[in-house]
């Protein structure tokens, strides 16, 4: 049996809280765990939170599956960008090739973190009436507002 919307949201919210707790732990344990482990734990928790938050307000259902997958894919790529920054910074040797005058990790941060979210903006604009605020929902709200 498919979980109801309420149960699904409860699960998303619980996931967000667990990720928040993990990130808080990573911060407060600074000095007690290796720095790389700390950064990876905090980064994973952060990306987990963002991914769940993005899914929170998307209309569920078969008709909107494609859009929800697209949003999910966008989040995955964003997480990959973040871990790419960690990796490139770790392997960078001074004097190596620069990208747009910057170290590769810095360039990925500047362009990736700033510009990749425009994919989500595009999905928002294109899929607004399908996956964010359907025409049916708008009519329901209008009729309730008239009753008020």
């Amino acid at each position, binding site marked *: 049996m498919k979980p109801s919307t309420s149960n699904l949201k409860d699960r998303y919210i619980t996931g967000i*809280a667990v990720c928040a707790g993990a990130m808080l732990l990573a911060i407060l344990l600074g000095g007690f765990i290796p720095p790389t482990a700390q950064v990876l734990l*905090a*980064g994973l928790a952060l990306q987990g939170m963002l991914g769940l*938050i993005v899914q929170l307000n998307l209309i569920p259902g078969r008709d909107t599956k494609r859009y929800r997958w697209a949003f999910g894919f966008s989040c995955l790529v964003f997480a990959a960008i973040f871990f790419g920054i960690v990796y490139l910074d770790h392997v960078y040797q001074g004097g190596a090739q620069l990208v747009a005058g910057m170290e590769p990790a810095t360039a990925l941060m500047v362009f990736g973190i700033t510009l990749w*979210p425009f994919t989500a903006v595009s999905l*928002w604009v294109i899929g607004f009436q399908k996956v964010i*605020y359907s025409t049916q929902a708008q009519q329901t709200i209008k009729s309730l507002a008239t009753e008020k």
Partner: protein
Amino acid sequence: MDDRTLILLFIAGYLSICLGVGIWAARRTRSSRDFFVAGQGIGTVLLGFAAFSTTMSGFGFIGGPGLVYKYGTSSFWICCCAILGFTLSALLIGKRFKIFSELFDILTLPDAVAIRYQSELCRFLSALVILLGVIAYLGTNILAFGTVASTFFEIDFTLAAIGGMTVVILYAVFGGIIAGLYTDVIQGFIMVFASVALFWIAISTAGEGQFVDGPANLTQAFREAELSSAIGPWGVLGPMACLSFFFLFALGGSGQPHINTKYFMLRDVRPVRWGLLLCTVAYTLCILLWMTVGFAMKYLVITGQAPALVAGQEDNAAPVFLLNHAPPWLAGIVFSGLFAAIMSTADSFLNIGAGVFVRDFPQVFLRRTVKRELFWARVATVLLATAATAFALWAKKHGDLIAILGTFGWGLFAAAFVPVVAIGFNWKRATWQGAAASTIVGLVTNLGLDLAGKYPEASPLYKVPGAVSVGAVALLASLVTFVAVSFLTRPAPLSRTLECAIDS
């Protein structure tokens, strides 16, 4: 005509336009609904520009380059996540607030919180947080204004700060949020133009075109000066600090009342869809200034082409660069843009703060609204501006950088409102006990950690490890508290209308 006179003419022209808009808006402001939510009649352009102008405040124009000068790329994690932040804010709050404003009588954010949780305690706590955050954030903008004006006009800082606030008060008091919104559009255009122009000047003239490329480019210069950490992806502060900034400014945007209350003002749902695109494109252009001017100034210092900025006055990076390296007509426009950024945020905060005194506190303590709401809203605006100016002057004496104060204000709102508003308005299971607990935890953690990290001055009580932002810790703590307490308490039954508002 000398350079300073030309710049002054531009600034005077811009300030006159603001006052003119204030007078025009005053004629359209006939009720408290007009004063606080612009009569619920704004469209895409006003929403898009208002959201981005209010966010790109003095914090972004002055504090940002100052932080870059001091900490390198660490501060990029504040501005780079802005697009993500606006998107999350739209996803969590955009349609939700529009729906709430259609179904319920809402003029302020605490109004909405009281309706959602059916709790006057939650209204009171929200109002209290807004008051504290507004004073801190207004203080940031007054400091920014004072810094720019005193640097440029070579006048006393106090005089500059008071002068700036006087202009803001004049158009905010009479025109309310309508004045604020329309000046936001003018200010937005100026800010975008100023940012792109100054970005171009920074990369073209600093190092005679070698800023980005060439044998003496930025990266090379920083390496030779043994400042490699400043140009790596984490900057001087390190990865945990950067992650905390990223988290706080990406998710924290959903809790900023000066941004999210704009959704109460919409005439219909279309601006929710298109406003995000407009806002994000405009903001992306504006962060070009944040990213380049601080580095350009530092580059000039380490290559011996400019004297170093005094420690504790890194906020002068943008004004000093502008005065010494931009043509006067551009400097005039950019200074107008700087003042625009500061004033657009200041008037939003004044409006929000006035709502607390005029609408929310009377509801909590007197269980009714005041008579002559519009008159008292104007009085409250003046009193709040005076209190914020006094706070800013006090903060200046204690050496707080603009961006540090701004981070505190942002963090306070984020910790108090992200769980309560961004999560709670989308989750039926959220309870008033969870909302109250998380607001208190957010407030106490933010203030407590901020004070513990500064006092006693000789040996502070406790500093969060890894230079992690206090606001991020407070937001995480309040998120966990909100969810845990909500699950542990029983949700109140919701009316059909409220359920529909949350579920749609």
